[in-house]
């Protein structure tokens, strides 16, 4: 992955999130407070502006910039969670204008670790983790099997979407949806859904560039 692909991914993610904002808000209204779409749109719009304004020598710098921008603009729980995920991903990558697939696997692990550390969520708690973790597992397995980025990213996107879809059957144990207890069952988690959008954006960007 090079700097162009990294920024292309984030721009694609911003576009998908803006497009899906009403749906994210609808999901969040059911089990949260109905602002996930507008909050993430505000954050990713700021990320695009920060990418436009900056020049990046290292792939990691792109993600660190995106992460700090999300932390500074989103608020709520998703700001620190997505912000820390991208920041940790960026910090874990070696310096340079391009990174290898194993670098990316390690970076995505660092991102997931920061989400779990900050939010304390485990798989099955009906959170971002329920899309992120299967996506990372699929990505890692594909890389280990020798797949190129477009294939690994497509596998990750499929797994993320599947994981996000499966959150409908879960009872929320973290975040605002946890207040609902059993009543949270039957609704897809908005955070897992937006995570799936982000991995899908990676697959699309990697597919286009590859």
């Amino acid at each position, binding site marked *: 992955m090079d700097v162009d692909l990294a920024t292309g991914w984030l721009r694609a993610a911003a576009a998908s999130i803006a497009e899906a904002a009403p749906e994210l808000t609808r999901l969040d*209204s059911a*089990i949260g407070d109905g602002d996930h779409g507008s909050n993430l749109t*505000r954050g990713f719009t700021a990320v695009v502006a920060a990418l436009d304004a900056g020049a990046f020598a290292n792939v990691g710098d792109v993600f660190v910039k995106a992460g700090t921008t999300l*932390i500074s603009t989103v*608020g*709520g729980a998703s*700001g*620190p969670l997505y912000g820390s995920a991208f920041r940790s991903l960026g910090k874990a990558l070696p310096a340079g204008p391009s990174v290898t697939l194993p670098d990316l696997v390690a970076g995505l692990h660092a991102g997931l670790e920061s989400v779990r550390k900050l*939010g304390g969520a485990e798989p099955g708690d009906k959170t971002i983790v329920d899309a992120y973790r299967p996506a990372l597992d699929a990505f890692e397995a594909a890389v280990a099997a020798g797949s190129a980025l477009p294939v690994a990213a497509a596998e990750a996107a499929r797994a993320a979407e599947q994981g996000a879809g499966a959150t409908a059957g879960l009872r929320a144990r973290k975040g*605002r949806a946890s207040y609902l207890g059993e009543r949270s069952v039957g609704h897809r988690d908005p955070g897992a859904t937006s995570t799936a959008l982000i991995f899908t954006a990676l697959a699309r960007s990697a597919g286009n560039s590859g």
Partner: protein
Amino acid sequence: MKKFINDPADVVTEALTGLAAAHPELRVDATGQYVARAGAPRAGKVALVSGGGSGHEPLHGGFVGTGMLDAACPGEIFTSPVPDQILAATQAVDGGAGVVHVVKNYTGDVMNFQLAAEMAADEGVAVETVLVDDDVAVEDSTWTAGRRGTGATLLVEKIAGARAEEGGKLTEVAAIGREVNIGSASFAYALTAGTTPAAGRPGFDLPDDEIEAGVGIHGEPGRRREPLRPARDLVAAALDAILEAKPRDRGDRVIVLVNGLGGTPLIELYLVYGEVARILGERGVEIARRLVGNYVTSLDMAGLSITLTRVDDEMLRLWDAPVVTPGLRWGA
């Protein structure tokens, strides 16, 4: 949606502009997005900073002033402020004696304040955090995000603020804030959902004859739907939940807050207060002070919350101490 707004995206900023215009004694920092007391920082005084999503007015910006908060950070509507905001406010009001963060227990608020406290520590500012989690409608277990911070936030900010005003040290101010929280329990009902400007429609739909019991202050649905009943029955059930979670003995003294959630007429709040006073009288719990009105709101939600805070002489003295803020003022 019918609201007195211009563009939904500008509501928070434009309301801050209005707050600044209405209260020249406050300093509204448009860049840092916080509201501070004029004259802050005051050397040697412990500062109190709170914040949270907007839409709960007068909480928190309306509680900035003498005897209460030194600064408040309003986030977007129902969205916690970001760490940069909280850090800017913390640094702006730190008088060298440290800063107490009063944080309502919501995942987002806790994370953003935690990040800000770490950043403040890096800058050499001592921060103590007081977490408010008084809403007994939520199970307090490892399987949830824990009880929510609601009406007790006002009592924590008032009593800890008074302690800071009279020269209390950082640990003392934080300690009494935590004590107030531990002695507090709240329960809320909604008759209708609130409407956020961004969503444009109510957060949930309630049939005409149903209410949401155990509702939170963000339009998030409560524990269960139930049929509308006479106020005396609803108050009795709320007090049962409160007293089950935090039992009070005969002779215990409490401050009672009957708080409107934004769309409930005062006449109903007083009717409810009357029921609270009657039931607590029957149970032998002494109401030492009371407050009835709209203080911790949820936009235009029709609903109310009842908070009971157990108090001792020291807390009562601090409760009675002068306070001069847009939302609460007495004794000055």
